[in-house]
């Protein structure tokens, strides 16, 4: 059966680059995807774009594209990425500029837009997470981007694009797009598209299926994580999926690494909602075909729900934070005393916060309190405030524990940040369409 080879080049915005370039050079790939958008990345990009209309795309785009362009010169792998973030047009223009600098000619670079649906928002729309109307977020909305499906990517590839740069698309669409284009699947072939979504889901976090986010020494040993190889999916015309990686790289592809990633961030495995289909992973099983080769059988899909999920970014609050460490057999008692001092100091200072969290790192910051007193304990205080001035009090008061708090407090740090959060709404798919623009080098 005819298969296509799709590599993964990034699993998040700041991921390692060498494994991707290695994949392009040695992987005999047809396509490589770079998934670089977290939930609120576009909202942050939008803020950046307001200051500079030529910005708002992934901050590593230039660094990545220089290396990618150099590698595809001899190994013409098609590149698909959502690094466009809040400004896919500017990202594509920058890529054209870099391609010219690199002396590449005849390259077609596509940008896919249409995900920006800020104009379609209305105040009464219910927020999916809370059921409350969007107007409750006030005047602070920064961005609204629909998780588009694969249509725009398919169209860009049909028009001959060598590099496709999108804004917000559903992560698996980065893989469903090339599969639909390559095999000529119709958008309505939901069984195959569902299998394509599985392939995309397994590739989208890059190293997380090849042994990253897995190791537990003595129980789950993974070789050479420092040199973790990113995954390659071999996908058949019928949507069958084999996950593998290149020889000479670290990590491993086993049934266990693949099984963990199949369920990663999936809620009901029978109904994984994507704009391209509702994928069904409830009947999957895995098969180790050889070293670092695992087949995943049994995925399918059915018609999507006709809605695009829209991620709405808004200016939410400020968070102020401070930390300080204590050592010794009384470390826990001194850290607890420090925490009590902070609570009283925040009252004295009239610090206006809506939520306060006081943790003892090493004791209870990650889960419930352990019944132990470790030799090292680090106090961490974090509070949510409406403004910068109140947020700043938190770190200042923790720092003041150096001279005013328990004995032997060390390593105080403080920080404050303005928080951009996201809320979700639905918009009907028929109100939104992807637009493709091709730029030639």
């Amino acid at each position, binding site marked *: 059966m005819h298969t296509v080879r799709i590599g993964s080049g990034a699993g998040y915005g700041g991921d390692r680059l060498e494994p991707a370039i290695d994949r392009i050079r040695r992987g005999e790939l047809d396509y490589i995807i770079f998934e670089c958008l977290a939930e609120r990345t576009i909202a942050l990009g939008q803020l950046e774009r307001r200051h500079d209309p030529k910005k708002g795309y992934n901050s590593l785009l230039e660094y990545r594209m220089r290396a990618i362009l150099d590698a595809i010169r001899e190994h013409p792998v098609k590149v698909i990425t959502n690094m466009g973030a809040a400004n896919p047009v500017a990202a594509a223009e920058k890529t054209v500029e870099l391609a010219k600098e690199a002396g590449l000619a005849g390259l077609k670079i596509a940008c896919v837009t249409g995900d920006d649906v800020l104009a379609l928002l209305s105040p009464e729309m219910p927020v999916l997470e809370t059921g409350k109307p969007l107007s409750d977020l006030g005047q602070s909305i920064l961005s609204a981007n629909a998780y588009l499906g694969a249509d725009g990517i398919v169209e860009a590839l049909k028009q001959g694009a060598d590099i496709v740069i999108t804004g917000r698309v559903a992560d698996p669409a980065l893989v469903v797009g090339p599969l639909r284009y390559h095999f000529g699947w119709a958008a309505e072939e939901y069984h195959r598209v569902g299998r394509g979504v599985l392939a995309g889901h397994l590739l989208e976090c890059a190293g997380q299926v090849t042994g990253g986010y897995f190791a537990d020494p003595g129980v789950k040993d993974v070789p050479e994580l420092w040199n973790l190889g990113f995954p390659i999916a071999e996908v058949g015309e019928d949507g069958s999926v084999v996950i593998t990686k290149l020889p000479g790289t670290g990590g491993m592809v086993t049934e266990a690494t693949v099984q963990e990633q199949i369920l*990663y961030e999936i809620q009901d495995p029978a109904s994984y909602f994507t704009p391209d289909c509702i994928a069904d992973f409830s009947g999957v099983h895995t098969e180790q075909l050889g070293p670092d080769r695992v087949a995943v059988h049994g995925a399918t899909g059915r018609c999507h729900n006709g809605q695009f999920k829209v991620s709405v970014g808004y200016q939410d609050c400020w968070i102020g934070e401070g930390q300080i460490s204590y050592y010794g057999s009384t470390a826990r008692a001194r850290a607890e005393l420090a925490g009590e001092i902070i609570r009283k100091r925040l009252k004295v200072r009239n610090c206006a916060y809506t939520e306060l969290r006081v*943790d003892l790192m090493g004791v209870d910051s990650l889960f419930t309190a352990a019944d132990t007193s470790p030799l090292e304990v680090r106090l961490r205080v974090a509070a949510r405030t409406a403004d910068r001035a109140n947020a700043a009090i938190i770190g200042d008061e923790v720092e003041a524990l150096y001279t005013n708090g328990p004995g032997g407090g060390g390593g105080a740090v403080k920080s404050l940040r303005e928080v951009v959060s996201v809320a979700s709404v639905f918009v009907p798919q028929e109100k939104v369409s992807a637009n493709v623009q091709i730029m030639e080098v």
Partner: protein
Amino acid sequence: MKLRELAHSRTGDKGNISVISVIAWKPEDYPRLKAQVTADVVAKYFQGVVHGAVKRYEIPGIHALNFVMEDALGGGVTRSLAIDAHGKCLSYALLELELPDWEG
């Protein structure tokens, strides 16, 4: 016996929802996991951390359970005050769960 002797696990997040898989190392231990690691057991284990409902899904082909825990991430990854806003550590918390003896 601790859950970690029978299973491995991974946490994912969506907004304020934490999703934890529990995958039996050996298919023959799957009936035991289904009987002993119920949604109620997991809800009780995470009380104080998880404030919403806990649902369990079964994926028999890979001898796995998937726990979906609502209101579990301090308001959501983007605004949580927690040091581990994603709840990445919660899978390793669950693996410390002590299992009762098993006659099955």
